């Protein structure tokens, strides 16, 4: 374990220089109101038709927030609480009003072997309890690794899309279509595999796969202006990315990346390769992105059309101004409030942000006159 002096000095210099904050400027033209107090890690949340909220706490509690009160919904998904795993995203079926389906992503230890992997469940709420639970997907194999579960859920044109991270096994999972992890998946809303999924005729492939070569996507939304699926993902050091998801596309991890290992050593010298997609944007230094929302309402003036991305690492909400599907400017909102985990545009057009160790806040543009 003893290090030679030059190595030690190099390490010290690297450690002092490498992790400075990024250079995005602090925006002061906004303030916030705390809507839901006292949450530990609001990993995902969504709005019910009556305006109340369903909130996933990572530790496994499902909370219904209505009339300023928190009520725990009983019988939530059984989770594998370890490292980055727990109760993750929540999303309503587009026709929730008529069918009542609620979708969850979570870490589960179901199946063979120690450990866990990401699962997708749908269920309904009846008498304050989850019922009619159906597991629609469970990634394999289980592993005791603590990292890279993903996971976000969106609906598009009646299909269910979700992300699963590469579970800390970058050399085996992301580029192998016969293995789970490091993928974006597409299913029918009841879990069936769509016949036109890209790899249904590929030998031994996991046929739910829609795109591959991902690392750990913890943000996914439909861009309401283009109807494309946008994701972002945690890259290695200096390699967090925004991507526009395409059918059958290979996003390159770990063959191509803008990042390096946490230790400072190289993963690959390639940042592009034929047949592999280029990101819309990459962050260096990494911001550790989680949660994502497009501003499509008229509540924020010329911020309309921008995309918001939470930064866990530097604890702010990144306002990314877009032009021709590129990030042309970034600004720091909600600077230093805490680790930004989840971002949603509410039915009232306002942006709501889930912040660890704080709660869910409402973002308001302008000066706070109160």
């Amino acid at each position, binding site marked *: *374990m*003893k290090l030679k002096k030059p190595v*030690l000095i190099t390490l010290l210099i690297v450690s002092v220089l490498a992790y400075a904050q990024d250079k995005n400027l602090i925006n002061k033209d906004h303030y916030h109101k705390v809507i839901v107090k006292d949450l*530990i890690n609001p990993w995902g949340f969504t709005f019910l038709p009556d305006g109340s909220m369903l909130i996933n706490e990572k530790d496994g509690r499902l909370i219904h927030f209505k009339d300023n009160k928190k009520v725990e919904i009983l019988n939530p998904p059984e989770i594998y609480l370890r490292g980055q795993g727990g109760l993750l995203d929540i999303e309503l079926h587009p026709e929730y009003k008529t069918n009542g389906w609620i979708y969850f992503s979570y870490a589960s230890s179901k199946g063979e072997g120690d450990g866990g992997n990401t699962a997708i469940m749908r269920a309904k709420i009846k008498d304050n309890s989850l019922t009619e639970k159906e597991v629609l997907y469970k990634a394999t194999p289980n592993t005791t*690794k*603590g990292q890279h579960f993903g996971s976000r859920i969106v609906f598009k044109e009646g299909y269910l899309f979700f992300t699963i991270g590469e579970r800390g096994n970058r050399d085996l999972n992301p580029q192998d279509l016969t293995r789970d992890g490091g993928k974006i998946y597409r299913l029918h809303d009841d879990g069936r595999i769509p016949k036109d999924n890209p790899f249904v005729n590929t030998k031994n492939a996991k046929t739910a796969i829609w795109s591959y070569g991902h690392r750990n996507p913890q943000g996914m939304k439909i861009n309401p202006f283009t109807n494309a699926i946008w994701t972002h993902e945690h890259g290695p050091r200096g390699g967090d990315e925004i991507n526009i998801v395409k059918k059958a596309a290979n996003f390159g991890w770990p063959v191509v990346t803008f990042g390096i290992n946490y230790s400072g050593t190289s993963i690959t010298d390639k940042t592009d390769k034929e047949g592999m997609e280029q990101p819309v944007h990459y962050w260096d230094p990494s911001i550790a992105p989680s949660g994502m929302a497009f501003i499509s309402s008229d509540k924020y003036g010329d911020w309309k059309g921008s995309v918001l991305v939470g930064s866990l690492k530097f604890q702010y909400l990144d306002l990314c101004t877009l032009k021709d599907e590129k990030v042309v400017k970034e600004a720091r909102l909600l600077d230093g409030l805490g680790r930004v985990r989840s971002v949603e545009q509410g039915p009232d057009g306002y942006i709501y942000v889930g912040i*660890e*160790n704080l709660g869910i806040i409402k973002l308001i543009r302008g000066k706070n006159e109160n």
Partner: protein
Amino acid sequence: MKINHLTLIVIFLCLGCNTSDKKANPELNASIKSGNEVYQSFCINCHMANGEGIENVYPPLVNSDYLKENLEASISATKYGLKGKITVNGKVYNNIMTPMGLSDQEVANVINYINNSWGNKNTRLITPEEVSKIQPK
């Protein structure tokens, strides 16, 4: 014969030198090795590759007065998580570390790794039994 004797002694001494460090505590070394795997999977995202943390956000583990002076609290944080203000090397950190779901063995291993990495030196072996007795702070 004299040369042979001398050679033997030299060889003996060299062997002694080479192995003394490791032989001193094979159990600790094995724990550090396993602890490294836990660190790479659970800790590195925030506390970074060399335990330096992130300025004003996540406290350092390398050369940390908090770790040295509050080992029990550090083990407790690794086991149960940590919330609220702590002061590390004169800087206040007010954040949250959610429980990682580690076993007592894994907590012991990763603490042994942290205690003996990047220039940190604390060769007292932390055992799973010791971890099992630690209560939430």
